[in-house]
């Protein structure tokens, strides 16, 4: 079987697996978030937190609870890193420096998992488990809860509330993420991933030198890293490390885990709004964009556009031999199409256009299918903007799922759309405008520009993957990227919750022949078109001077 055929088989089998999981998982999540009963552990948690699980929150209350929870999380993660030398299982590592600790705290709480450090030589086991892995669960659950709140906004009529943040958070962790992660971790261990609490092993290398090989609770962290679209690796080289990603089928499983919740959430959406076909339409938009992203990345990598790959026969630089070009490209596309940011190969070494695809995937706003929860709410906001323009063209006040898109809704949706591009472009411009920050580039010319553009794109979109090459563990980058991550996560969340509140309060308009149908291929095509055009128009100048200039030279 040729490389290309194998790669296509890999992609096709992923699609089939995702399709099989789609209905059961989507319906299950729908039941989770609309259930009225509470399990015993959940009751215990509510009692400890002092919340009434039956009490519903307005969008403002929901947002305040979410922000308060996230603020406490940032402090906890920061504290555990700074105090790790005085806590158990530190492996003798010193406290993490202040700017890295701050950056990491923001990074994991915002579901970004940008890492300006190498995991194995910076974080002890306790920090990895109690700070980072816990955030891998809760930050993912936060994203899902926001998406569910927005879906409730569409589903409810004349309602002042959008749900209860604490209930959504706890259910997301206990009923969705933990069970899947538990099974997934066991499977990954079977695939050869390590899972222990040992201190580093000293081994003698072939050349006679010694090397410390760090084990740790890798498999348990790995599974939620992908499932929660987090992406923060236990090891510096992330999923390229054999202890994190041992063999081709663990690679396959990791990609599956990355994509399964974001795609299935569209089924949950269809269930909760009572029109499955609306969920399918959103799924179709995500599917078209994702498939295009994956295939184009594969095409660019397999055709190896640049000089060196052509000379050596394949674009293998920065890729693992055990995965090969195609499976690395597919992983690269999946990780940037979602807000995962895990890597099994180095995007910096991709062909110029392949590297551009990873950037473009993120610039889409990570909506195809995007992060857990964040992908769905991002896509719904894009659908709202599309409905607005398209709805005008059918001669009615635009409405989506029976809710009118009026000045307030379009204001929130527009602001949502503004936040990330502004952070990316302003951040990149600030870095590029300063000779000192440019010094962090590994390469010069358009490729160096791409490194910086990638860093800000990744941070602002809460992806967390790195182009590599760029030295980012400096105070300036830690602070700047940390701010991008924080604003890129929480400003959109507040806007989405406000949108949810404003939609929930409306009374729905009944559907008629004059209503724009939002479940037909026509609408799917429009959302794809609007997304591509808006993103292309926003980022074309920057891309032209980075990857496009490099690729066309």
């Amino acid at each position, binding site marked *: 079987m040729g490389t290309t055929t194998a790669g296509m088989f890999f992609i096709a089998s992923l699609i089939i697996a995702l399709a099989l999981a789609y209905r059961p998982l989507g319906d299950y999540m729908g039941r989770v978030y609309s259930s009225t009963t509470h399990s015993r552990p959940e009751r215990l948690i509510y009692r400890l937190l002092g919340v009434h699980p039956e009490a519903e929150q307005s969008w403002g209350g929901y947002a305040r609870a979410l922000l308060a929870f996230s603020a406490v999380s940032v402090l906890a993660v920061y504290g555990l890193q700074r105090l790790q030398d005085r806590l158990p299982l530190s492996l003798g590592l010193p406290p993490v420096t202040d700017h890295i600790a701050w950056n990491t705290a923001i990074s994991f709480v915002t579901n970004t998992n940008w890492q300006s450090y190498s995991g194995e030589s910076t974080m002890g086991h306790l920090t990895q488990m109690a700070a980072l892995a816990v955030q891998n669960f809760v930050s993912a659950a936060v994203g899902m809860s926001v998406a569910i709140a927005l879906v409730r906004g569409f589903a409810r009529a004349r309602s002042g509330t959008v749900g209860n943040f604490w209930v959504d958070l706890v259910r997301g962790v206990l009923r969705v993420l933990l069970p899947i992660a538990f099974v997934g971790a066991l499977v990954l261990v079977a695939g050869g991933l390590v899972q222990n609490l040992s201190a580093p092993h000293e081994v003698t290398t072939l050349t006679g030198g010694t090397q410390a090989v760090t084990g740790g609770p890798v498999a348990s962290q790995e599974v939620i890293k992908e499932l929660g679209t987090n992406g923060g690796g236990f090891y510096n080289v992330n999923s390229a490390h054999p202890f994190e990603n041992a063999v081709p089928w663990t690679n396959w499983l990791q990609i599956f885990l990355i994509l399964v919740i974001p795609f299935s959430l569209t089924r949950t959406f269809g269930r909760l709004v009572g029109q499955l076909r609306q969920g399918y339409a959103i799924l179709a938009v995500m599917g078209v964009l994702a498939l295009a992203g994956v295939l184009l990345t594969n095409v660019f990598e397999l055709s190896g556009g640049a000089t060196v790959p052509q000379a050596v026969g394949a674009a293998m630089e920065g890729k693992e031999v055990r995965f090969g070009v195609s499976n690395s490209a597919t992983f690269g596309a999946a990780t940037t199409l979602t807000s995962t940011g895990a890597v099994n190969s180095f995007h910096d070494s991709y062909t110029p256009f392949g590297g551009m695809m990873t950037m473009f995937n993120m610039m889409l706003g990570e909506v195809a299918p995007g992060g857990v929860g964040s992908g769905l709410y991002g896509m719904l906001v894009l659908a709202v*903007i599309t409905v*607005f*323009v*398209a709805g*005008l*063209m*059918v*001669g*009615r*006040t635009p409405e989506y799922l*029976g809710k009118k*898109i*009026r*000045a307030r*809704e*379009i*204001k929130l949706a*527009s*602001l949502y*759309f*503004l936040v990330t591009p*502004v952070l990316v*472009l*302003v951040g*990149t*411009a*600030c870095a*590029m*405008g300063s000779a000192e920050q440019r010094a962090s580039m590994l390469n010069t*010319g*358009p490729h160096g*520009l791409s490194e910086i553009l990638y860093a800000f794109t990744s941070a602002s979109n809460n992806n967390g993957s790195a182009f590599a090459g760029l030295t980012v563990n400096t105070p300036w980058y830690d602070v700047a990227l940390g701010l991008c991550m924080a604003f890129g996560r929480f400003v959109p969340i507040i806007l989405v919750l406000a949108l949810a509140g404003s939609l929930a309060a409306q*009374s*729905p*308009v*009944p559907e*008629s*022949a*004059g*209503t*724009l149908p939002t479940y*037909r291929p*026509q609408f799917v095509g*429009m959302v794809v*078109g609007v997304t591509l*055009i*808006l993103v292309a*128009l*926003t*980022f*074309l*100048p*920057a891309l*032209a*001077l*980075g990857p*496009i*200039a490099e690729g*066309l*030279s």
Partner: protein
Amino acid sequence: MSTSALEEPAPERDGRAGGGLLDPQQLIRSLPDALKKLHPFALWRNPVMFVVEVGAAFTTVLAVLDPSVFAWAITAWLWLTVLFANLAEATAEGRGKAQAATLRKAKTDAVARRLADPADPTRWDVIRAAELRQGDHVIVEAGETIPGDGDVVEGIASVDESAITGESAPVIRESGGDRSGVTGGTKVLSDRIIVAITQKPGESFVDRMIALVEGANRQKTPNEIALNILLAALTVIFLVATVTMQPLAIYSKLVNPGVADSPALNADGVTGVVLVSLLVCLIPTTIGALLSAIGIAGMDRLVQRNVLAMSGRAVEAAGDVSTLLLDKTGTITLGNRQAAAFVPVRGVTPSELAEAAQLSSLADDTPEGRSIVVFAKQRFGLRERQPGELAHAEWVPFSAQTRMSGVNVDGREVRKGAATAVMKWVRDAGGHAAEEAGHLVDGISASGGTPLVVAERGRVLGVIHLKDVVKAGMRERFDEMRRMGIRTVMITGDNPLTAKAIADEAGVDDFLAEATPEDKLTLIKREQEGGRLVAMTGDGTNDAPALAQSDVGVAMNTGTSAAKEAGNMVDLDSNPTKLIEIVEIGKQLLITRGALTTFSIANDIAKYFAIIPAVFAAVYPGLDALNIMRLSSPQSAVLAAVIFNALVIVALIPLALRGVRYRPSSASKLLSRNLYVYGLGGVVAPFVGIKVIDLLIQLLPGMS
């Protein structure tokens, strides 16, 4: 509710909700106004064009400091872009101004004869019309101008309302009933009336009309506000995209030290002139320039159809209407029932019945009576006899007591009328009312018709079937409405049986029979609770609550001032069918906005392909591959993009004023069509346009 004054069949509409033609002269006439609008404070409300103006001012400074043909050409075209936008708005307003001037003539300094005591029409004092207060009573005689809006409380008069409606035929205004409303500025032609003034000083109907058609105090409509927000957001995005490009450009120039400076790019990055050009080309100037013109023109299209919308909000709501309440009489059916069949009892020939029916109706001046005569002539060739021909005929007029009419001639007595009354008359004369006639009567009633029994003394001859006649073309229109997703509900005072028959014949979706004003109000509220927007027409005072409750309430100009006050539109032609056109205009308004927004955004793709390679191909020659239009030089590429951007505004002014063509169809079909024309067209058009402009301007000095 009364019958409308102007009985009109549904007008033939060929161009649908088309619009007036654009007169090129109008553009030139609007130029001074357009120049006035260059004032920054005037432009401040339009963020997109404000950014263009600031950019134009900035390039002017740059061109003065470092003059070149290129810089001045760009500067000139940037100013023209702003000017063209103003021109669009001024032209739209100009059309209203002409209308306002005509209206002002009606606002002469009329004097009023104010009664000291409303009950005593002999004592008055003469004051200026402007001093009239609400509740004053004035007396107006033939030849005088009515000094203010109000209701006739005493008398009847014919009034010339041409100043407002443009209709020269006089109309009757009388106290009581639904034709009591009079408008200030109109002229009494005959008789004398006493009018109770209902307007506040300075807030007369004509005052409001003038303000409306001039577009003064024009409030942005909800949709316009929402669209403005989106446009502002896009402007911010492109502002950020162009400004943040600068450090990247400086860096790119820095790492390619061998490349010579160009008019587009030097060591300080992209030159100011080119940067502003790129920004102006990217921000949605097309829709930004035309947005307010579209709104004004939408109102104006209504005015041209003799409908006054009291707010733009109402026009927009018309596009959203999902339930249309239509009065049966005058809207769906012609005003009156008409004879549709003569059904004889056994033993009577049809022509025998027809002859008797005609005879009994000759002196019957009601429309029903006339229709019987006409039907007898059309179907049975019976010559219409004049009542005078039958010299010794004794005509028996209809009375509420007898409930029948007829004639006694040559010893023959013929009667026609309500079934029970005529049957009784037959029985009283010793005849016996055939059971068969009873069945016929019941059959006609059951089918929704009105039976009139015709009889001779002692003998029933047969039954006349009177039915409501649905106006021509109504069924097609309601089918269209259904395709547009609008539910039509017929309102009638008839019994449910009759109502259902007519509803079925006309093809409306639903009906409300035996409707009282309260029923109507309840129906509207129920529809609105379901999230539907409701439109209706009305003219009577008892319609006022429903008019006020409905989202689009169109009051007939012939109606009472209470009705006109309650509705948010007034139809000067008093044609209830016009509601359908109003809905179309409302939709057209939104479609035009959406189509031009799509066009505007789609345009940007080509502009990037023109400007990005023009600026950066010098440092990265590979980027020349993006120059797919093969534009001749960087300068001509940038200038061509800017010129195209400006010219497309002018080219689209007629479309903005006329509105995008609208044909009733389902949302999906409409969207497909508009997407092809304005989406795909918007992508392709600038590629062609910019290339053509480039071919023309490449020969100019300073373009290479």
